[in-house]
């Protein structure tokens, strides 16, 4: 219930801001970014802002649409010849922004270069490690062999852009080998891509200038094979302070901003600006340590969280709608799984976990904790939308069913160190499914920890259930889409029925735009300037 007088105050303030706005050039789009890309190199850091920027300059073989469904990119067709062989048909007549033709050699070079990026803090090898062989049948046909069935190969090929082999200093013959490619010359350092002369791709834009901390300028690429985007120029400015970002939008300094703070959205809309929001692939969840007894955040020798009834009680005690209404102001979707329907592998008929404090108390009593217990809930407070506030709200709700909860809120860097050291009995975190399908959250958060199979890497709750593992492993080897989806659905249903993990909500990703602009909200949370259009 906002105070009306302060509201009127703010309205007039923003009206004044709007008046001072400079004339907006019709063919330049200015964007206020919430976080700055750390490099123009598309293979340096597998991180949202970097990947979104890379999409402007470099095109991947396969594109993902706003719902992360696959679309042709530099490859027009891809088919599984058998369980371990894929045939990719590359688009003909594509040229790089410097006019050189695009061929299979550039693809082979790109995949060869990915493991060689110096000092990459989060390399894309994650998505290329399945590849065992690459053979160019001709300039526009590529045969990919994998070291086992790799049904996710198309999703993985959609994650990185293709760079020019010639510009990067490759020889005329580039050949792939898992032990080291030949003919690739010296792999360029990431910093070189910050130079417009080096950042050569096949994307809709070319790099004009990259002034760290201040501005990133892109110019339309006239050699782009697809539809020409509406904007002659795109200027991205990092405005990491949310308040400053909103002010810049209202003042007309930028025409689009990422992540306007939830509490500002009503005001932004009230001023005639456009809000675009849509479900993201990110779930906010609470993990409950089921590994050891005793567990660090709970007094006593036992670990009540090993009892599924206790986990169910904690799940039911959370009033997801109150969080959605009061904290997220509608910008979240209460969750019943780890990925929102209708994404691949979800059970569309599963509702969000209901709120039932009465039942929660009963379950706690059944499990032998009629008076509850004490627990510490770890949480970052600068990573996800309103993360600290959500944890405090969850703590309130748990306390009210008898589980005395203390919140341990930290900056993400400190939180991560504690979480990875198994110092939390319960923690709140988020997971964005990069591939946009269910094997991503299940494999990372719920599958038994097993570095050899690359499973359970983020399963710091140490949940372990062979019923889930078996289905998941089988799904990861199944190239047939329908069968794979069935297996993933089953695995997800088991995980949810046993409260292996407690989902809270899916984040809605939000953009705010100047009046008259449109942007389709993307599940991968990328801000793509070329997809912004002028409404008729």
């Amino acid at each position: 219930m906002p105070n009306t007088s302060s509201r009127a105050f703010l309205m007039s303030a923003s009206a004044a801001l709007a008046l001072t706005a400079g004339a907006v050039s019709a063919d330049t789009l200015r964007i206020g970014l919430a976080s700055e890309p750390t490099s123009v190199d598309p293979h340096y850091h597998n991180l949202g802002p970097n990947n979104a920027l890379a999409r402007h300059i470099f095109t991947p073989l396969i594109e993902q649409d706003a719902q992360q469904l696959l679309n042709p990119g530099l490859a027009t067709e891809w088919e599984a010849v058998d369980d371990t062989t894929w045939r990719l048909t590359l688009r003909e007549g594509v040229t790089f922004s410097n006019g050189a033709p695009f061929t299979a050699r550039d693809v082979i070079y790109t995949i060869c270069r990915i493991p060689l990026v110096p000092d990459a803090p989060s390399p894309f090898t994650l998505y290329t490690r399945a590849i065992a062989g690459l053979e160019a049948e001709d300039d526009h046909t590529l045969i990919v062999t994998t070291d086992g069935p790799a049904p996710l190969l198309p999703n993985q090929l959609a994650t990185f852009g293709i760079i020019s082999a010639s510009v990067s200093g490759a020889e005329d013959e580039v050949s792939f080998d898992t032990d080291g490619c030949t003919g690739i010359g010296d792999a360029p350092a990431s910093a070189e891509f910050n130079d417009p002369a080096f950042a050569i791709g096949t994307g809709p834009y070319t790099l004009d200038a990259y002034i760290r901390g201040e501005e990133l300028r892109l110019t339309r690429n006239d050699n782009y094979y697809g539809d020409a985007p509406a904007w002659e120029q795109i200027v991205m400015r990092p405005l990491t302070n949310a308040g400053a970002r909103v002010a810049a939008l209202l003042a007309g300094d930028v025409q689009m901003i990422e992540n306007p703070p939830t509490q500002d959205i009503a005001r932004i809309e009230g001023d005639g600006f456009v809000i675009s929001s849509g479900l993201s692939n990110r779930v906010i969840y609470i993990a409950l340590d089921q590994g050891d007894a005793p567990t660090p955040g709970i007094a006593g020798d036992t670990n009540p969280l090993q009892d599924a009834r206790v986990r169910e009680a904690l799940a039911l005690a959370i009033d997801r709608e109150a969080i959605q209404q009061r904290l997220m102001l509608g910008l979240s979707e209460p969750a019943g799984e780890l990925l929102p329907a209708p994404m691949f592998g979800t059970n569309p008929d599963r509702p969000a976990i209901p709120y039932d404090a009465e039942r929660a108390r009963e379950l706690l009593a059944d499990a032998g904790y009629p008076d509850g217990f004490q627990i510490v809930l770890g949480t970052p407070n600068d990573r996800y939308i309103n993360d600290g506030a959500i944890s405090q709200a969850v703590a309130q709700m748990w306390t009210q069913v008898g589980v005395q909860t203390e919140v341990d809120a930290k900056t993400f860097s400190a939180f991560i160190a504690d979480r990875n050291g198994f110092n939390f009995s319960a923690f709140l975190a988020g997971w964005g499914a990069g591939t946009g399908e269910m094997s991503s959250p299940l494999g990372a958060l719920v599958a038994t920890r097993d570095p050899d199979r690359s499973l359970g890497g983020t399963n710091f709750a140490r949940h372990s259930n062979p019923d889930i593992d078996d289905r998941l492993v089988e799904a990861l080897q199944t190239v047939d889409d329908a069968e794979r989806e069935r297996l993933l659905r089953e695995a997800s249903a088991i995980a949810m029925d046993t409260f292996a993990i407690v989902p809270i909500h899916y984040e809605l990703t939000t953009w705010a735009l100047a009046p008259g602009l449109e942007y389709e909200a993307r599940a991968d949370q990328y801000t793509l300037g070329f997809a912004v259009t002028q409404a008729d």
Partner: protein
Amino acid sequence: MSDISITPPVEKAPQKKAISPLRAAMLDFASSPLAMIGLVVMVVMVLAAIFAPWITPQNPYDLSQLSIMDNNLPPGSESFGGQTYWLGTDPQGRDMLSAIIYGLRMSLIVAVTATLCALAIGMAMGITAAYFGGRIDTLIMRVVDLQLSFPAILVALILLAILGKGVDKVIIALVIVQWAYYARTVRGSALVERQRDYIAAARGLGLGHARVMFRHLLPNTLPPLIVVATVQIAQAIALEATLSFLGVGVPVTEPSLGLLIANGYSYLLSGAYWISVYPGVALLVAIVAINLVGDQLRDVLNPRLRR
């Protein structure tokens, strides 16, 4: 370096008055109405901080008393339970008035503890330097000079980047930042006192170093120290608030005034000004009150400044 720490010997006119020196100082102090207002405000704030659990409408950190259904209410709103939130609520539905009083408590605990520790260390170092002189003096004062040549905020920031968050760590950082001021002040006045006859007499009686230093030298260096300490408490509150604002201070679960301001910062532009502004006002009042008291104390305790 730019400060000249050696004060010339003070000519103390023989005072033959009926009232005790303490009483005279108190009367002197009371002569400034502004300082008296500062003193009253200061006392009220200290009492509020000490008795916070009994006087606040709500324990802001007892989660069973909070409801997010009451969050972000503007000042003067009523909750579903009929309670009035005179200063509004924060995003957790916490009563801001209670949060501010608890925040003040945290700010004062940190500042006072840090000041007392720094005072003790600085005093010991300063007296030692002045009493022994020579190499010990040079060594101690070299460290003091070195440290005072860096801005306090920077030293504290480095320390906390290394130590991490936490009430204890903030206190450590503040102590390290502050002890040098006391050391320099004590040394200055102790150097003057050391020349006096009574010290020579005490030494002549064969009293030990420690006894002379702490029983005879120290009490006579106290007045300037009290003045410095008062001002430094205000500085410590301000510095702690700044560090917490930058996110390297106290943890979010035990917010001080600075952290409350930081937490409300993102709501400032959205119109929910009360989350940030009221703790800010509390901080302002606390610092100004302490400074008013400190200024008057300096005038009272330092006869040279009397005009």
